[in-house]
């Protein structure tokens, strides 16, 4: 069907067939895509589809001389809002009637899915330009990221031909079968834009505020000494946290690895803090989970990656010698 529609588009519209374009053209466009999500003002509605589910959300991004501001809100189900400023991340839940403050500036939402260092993707994915498609009433250029090994899924991105902003992003195991997909259904790039649209709701002032007490372990800190000795190619540690979890006496060690596109979390906590040890592989939505005890600790690895990735990471978790 994809080949059919591509041939049709080429025939009818006389568009250039660019599916064999070199990696380099793809990289140039990927850089543009990565910057567009941060440099442009936009507000739009997007759907996230996975597992026969559809979630609709609204994203508003605003940037001025003082920095970037972002507001994410769910449009179906219970209302949840996440306001990201340079000063912190505020998460509002209408169910809990509370605002959670995260000191960690890592939240990123569609369409800001690409890393700052786009270059590192080249070693891990074969990047090819595809055909043109139409999303949310706008023309976009397809970019394929085909994994070079079995440790990550493939991605099909579609970048707005005018601005480079990502209009859709899908993850797949084997084409054309998609695991999940983000897609704008409506997008406003023209404005008017206003800082107030990305400000925390003043009514939040009357709610209970809860501060996430998790602590980022900075490089050079002793930390717990845990590390993944043999992560699959391209997965680098991007953060280490001493995470405070509800109902836990001791903070849990949380290591985060990423290949630039997807994140894998490694959790380590004493077995004595658990009702029972966990061992084996399972999956949850698009996330694979592998758990195994190491010494007197429970190690759990999870992420939007194939089972081989979480397994290899969990199997090579060890305490580093100091």
């Amino acid at each position, binding site marked *: 069907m994809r080949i059919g529609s591509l041939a049709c588009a080429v025939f009818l519209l006389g568009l250039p067939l660019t599916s064999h374009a070199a990696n380099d053209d793809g990289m140039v466009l990927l850089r543009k895509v990565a910057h567009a999500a941060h440099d442009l003002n936009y507000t739009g509605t997007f759907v*996230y589809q*996975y*597992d026969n589910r559809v979630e609709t*959300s609204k994203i508003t991004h605003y940037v001025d001389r003082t920095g970037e501001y972002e507001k*994410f809100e769910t449009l179906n*189900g219970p209302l*949840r809002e*996440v306001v990201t400023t*340079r*000063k*912190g991340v*505020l*998460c509002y*839940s209408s169910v*809990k009637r509370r605002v959670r*403050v995260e*000191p*960690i500036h*890592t*939240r*990123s*939402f569609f369409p*800001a*899915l690409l890393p700052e260092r786009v270059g590192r993707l080249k070693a891990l994915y074969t990047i090819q330009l595809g055909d043109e498609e139409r999303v949310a009433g706008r023309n976009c250029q397809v970019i394929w990221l085909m994994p070079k090994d079995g440790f990550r899924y493939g991605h099909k991105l579609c970048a707005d031909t005018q601005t480079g902003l990502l209009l859709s992003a899908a993850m797949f*195991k084997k084409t054309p079968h998609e*695991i999940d997909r983000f897609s704008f259904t409506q997008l406003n790039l023209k404005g008017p834009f206003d800082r107030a649209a990305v400000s*925390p709701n003043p009514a939040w*002032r009357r709610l*209970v*505020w*809860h*501060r996430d*007490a998790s602590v980022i372990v900075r490089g050079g800190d002793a930390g717990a000494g845990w590390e993944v000795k043999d992560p699959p190619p391209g997965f680098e540690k991007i953060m280490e946290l001493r995470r405070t*979890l*509800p*109902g*836990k006496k001791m903070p849990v060690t*949380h290591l*985060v690895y*990423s290949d630039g596109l997807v*994140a894998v*979390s490694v*959790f380590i906590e004493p077995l004595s803090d658990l009702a*029972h040890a*966990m*061992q*084996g*592989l*399972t*999956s*949850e939505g*698009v*996330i*694979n*989970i592998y758990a195994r005890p190491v010494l007197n600790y429970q190690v*759990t690895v*999870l*992420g*939007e990656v194939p*089972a081989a990735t979480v397994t290899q990471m969990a199997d090579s978790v060890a305490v580093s010698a100091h």
Partner: protein
Amino acid sequence: MSERISALMDGELDQEEAVHLIAAVAEQSDLRQAWATYHLIGDVLRELPQIPENFSVALSARLASEPTVLSPYKPKRRGEAMILPMAASFAAAALVVVAVFKLSATPSVSPHVVPQSVQSAPIAKVNGFRPDAIMTQYLIAHQEFSPNAAMEEVRPYQLAAFRSSQGGPQ
């Protein structure tokens, strides 16, 4: 009233208004709560270093252990009479407010309400590994690094969808 407290914090009220409002804040607990909350929000938004979790408890303990200094009463001239006691009681109120707020905020930290479906959903046993409530916590924590979800809660239907298959997502 909250707008006026906000205005007071921003230094937008004139002196007379400010004095009246400060007196009201010192008297009414809901206004003290609003005052404390506004400051917390302000601190978060200004990226000030957070006060330690047990700050109020430690402060209360230290205040309790402070010796009370008795000194001869010295009458003040009329001009100063209003402002200083007002400022002092206000400062005291602010300390109390911090304590009240921190104490009331504490319960929301510890007992975590696990979505019903965690316990009730038929969860497949895989390789002798049964995902449970701790997995919910892990998933929530992971979501901070995953654009797929923005939430501080895992969706209930996600948990019900724990799969029995060993492979990745289909």
